[in-house]
C-alpha cells in the first residue's frame, strides 16, 4: 500500500483515501458492509484460518447435504457457525479440554464454560437445546437425559465431541429459533441471519431486545485470550453467506 502511495503523485489522493478507509474498517460497520459484499474482507484478515474453514467444509460436503435433506437451508445454517470454524482452526493446537471434560462430568455447570469441537459449542448451550428442543417438529428423534447426573453429562460430552452431533445441535438451534421467533416478519434474509447468528454467539436465551442490541457488538476473536479489538460475529457470518451464495 505504501509503495503504491509513493508511486505517482496522481494516485496520491486516491491512495490516501483508501489508506484511511482501511484504517477505519475494523471500527466502522459501513466500511465493512461494502467489503462484505465483495466477500473478501475477512478472508484477508483471518487468512490461513479462513481457508482452513473453507477447506473443512469442502472436505465435509455431507454436512451441507445432510442439512438440505432435512429441510434446512445449508447456506444459512453453515454461515451461522462459520466464524467458529475459523476460531477452531486457530486454537485447535492449543486446546486442552481433557481436564475440563473431567471436571464438567464430575461437577457439572460450575465447570461447563468451555467450547468443544468444530462448531465451538459449550456444554451449557447443548444442555439448553436439549431442554428446549421439540423433537415432534424435527428429523432428530431422541429423548435426551436432562438429569443433573454424571451419566447425562458423559452422554452430552460424547455427543458434543461428534461432528455429526454438532450438526444435529445446529439443526436443533434453528428449530428452536424458528419456533421462538415465528411471529417476526423478517425484512430480509440478511436481517434474520444477523439475528440468528448473534443469538448463536451471544446466547439464544437472551431477550429479543438484547440479541438485537448484541448484533452491533464486536465480540468475536480467534485466540484463547480476548484481545483489545474484536470483530463482529454477524458481519463474518454475512461475509461467508454472500460468498457461498455467489459461488453457487
Amino acid at each position, binding site marked *: 500500500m505504501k509503495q503504491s502511495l509513493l508511486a505517482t503523485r496522481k494516485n496520491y489522493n486516491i491512495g490516501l483515501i483508501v489508506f484511511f478507509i482501511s484504517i477505519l474498517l475494523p471500527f466502522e460497520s459501513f466500511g465493512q458492509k461494502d467489503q462484505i459484499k465483495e466477500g473478501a474482507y475477512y478472508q484477508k484478515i483471518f487468512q490461513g484460518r479462513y481457508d482452513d474453514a473453507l477447506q473443512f467444509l469442502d472436505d465435509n460436503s455431507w454436512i451441507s447435504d445432510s442439512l438440505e435433506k432435512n429441510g434446512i437451508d445449508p447456506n444459512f445454517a453453515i454461515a451461522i457457525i462459520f466464524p467458529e470454524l475459523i476460531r477452531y482452526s486457530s486454537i485447535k493446537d492449543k486446546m486442552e479440554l*481433557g481436564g475440563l471434560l*473431567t471436571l464438567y462430568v*464430575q*461437577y457439572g455447570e460450575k465447570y461447563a464454560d468451555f467450547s468443544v469441537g468444530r462448531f465451538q459449542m459449550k456444554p451449557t448451550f447443548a444442555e439448553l437445546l436439549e431442554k428446549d428442543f421439540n423433537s415432534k417438529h424435527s428429523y432428530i428423534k431422541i429423548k435426551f437425559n436432562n438429569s443433573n447426573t454424571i451419566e447425562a453429562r458423559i452422554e452430552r460430552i460424547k455427543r458434543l465431541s461428534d461432528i455429526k452431533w454438532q450438526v444435529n445441535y445446529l439443526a436443533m438451534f434453528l428449530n428452536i429459533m424458528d419456533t421462538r421467533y415465528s411471529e417476526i416478519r423478517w425484512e430480509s434474509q440478511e436481517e434474520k441471519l444477523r439475528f440468528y447468528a448473534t443469538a448463536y454467539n451471544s446466547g439464544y436465551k437472551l431477550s429479543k431486545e438484547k440479541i438485537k442490541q448484541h448484533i452491533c457488538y464486536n465480540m468475536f476473536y480467534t485466540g*484463547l*485470550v480476548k484481545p483489545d479489538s474484536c470483530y463482529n460475529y454477524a458481519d463474518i457470518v454475512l461475509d461467508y453467506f454472500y460468498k457461498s451464495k455467489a459461488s453457487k
Partner: protein
Amino acid sequence: MSRKFLFNYLLLFTLSVFNSVAQEDATKKALLTLQEGESIVTNESCLNFSGHNEQLYLVTWQDKQFYVYENGTRKGPYKKPDDIKFRECENDQIPECAVFNYPEENYIESFVELTDDGTYIIKFRGEKYGPYNYVYHLHVSPDKALFAAIVANAEMKFSLITSNGLEQNLTGTFERFISSPSGKQFLVLIKEGIDIDISALSNMSEADMIKYMQEQAQKQQDAGGSVTQIIGTEGNLYGKYVSSVISSNNPAYCQTGSDNWYMVIGNTLFVNGNMLKQFDRNTNPSTCNIWLSTDGKRFALIDYNQILFSDGKSYPPPIKLEVEQSGTKTILKWISLENETELVSYSKEL
C-alpha cells in the same frame, strides 16, 4: 480331586500375589483444599507432580473474583484477569491420545528407483527387489536394517514385501500400514472386495488415483459394509473385521505398549488379536484412552469419571495426567479434584 483343587488354589493364590506385586495400590498425596464455591480455572493453572503444594500454580474463581495459589499461599481477590500475571505452563493437562504414531519419512526417494520401462525397483542394503508397477508404501526400521513395502502389479494386485524375504500376495485393497514403536513390527490393513477399474487407473495422476481408491472404498462401505483384514509382520492373518470398527487409531500400537498392538471393538479391548478385557457398558474405552504395559498384559483406561486399572482398582479421573516410562516400567501420575475441593495427586505403576 482334593489334591487337584489344592494345586489350583495354590496356583491362583500365587498368581494373585504376583499380580498384586506387579500392580500395587496407587500412592496418594493431598495437595491443597479449595474453599467452598471455589473452582479451578484449568487453562491458566500449572499442575505438576513434585508432590509439594508450593510448586503448584493455581488460578481459581470464587464469587465472581479470581484467586491465585502460588508458593503455597492464596493471593487475591483479583477482579479482572488483566490484574493477574499468569504463569506460562509447559506441560499439557492430559495427553490427547495414547496411540503411537510412527514418524514415517518419505523413504520412496531414498530407496526406490524408476526403471526405463516405467516400473519400480526397491534398492535396500545392496539388494534389489522388484520390479513392481507401483510402490504404495515403504517402511524402513529406525536402524535402517529392515524394510517392508506394499507393492502392486499392473492388475493392481497388492503384495507385502519385506527385506526378510517375505513376498505375500494380498487379497484386497491396501488401506493402511501401522508400525510399532520399535519400527520392527507392523500391521497391514487390507480391505476386501473393492472393485477397481484398472483401465481407468492407467490415465490417472497419483493424487487422482488415491482419490479414486478412497471413493471406491466409500462406495463399498455405503453398500452395506466391507471387511478389513489385519495382517502381521510375518504375513500372518490376525483376523477379518467389519471395516466400520476400523478407524485411524484402531487398531494401533500404544506409546507405552512396546510391540503389542491393540484394538477396541465395542466395549472390548483386544491385544495382539486376543481379548484382554470386556469393559462394563458404562465405560467409554478407545485406543486413545487406554495405556498398555510393555508386556501388553496390563492396562489403564482413562475414562470421563474414573481411571480404571486392569487389577480392577479405579480412582477419581485426572484433570492432569503424565505417563512415565523407564525400561519396562510404566508409571501413571495424575492429579484429581475430589469432593469438589480436594486437590490430590496419585501415582501408580501399570
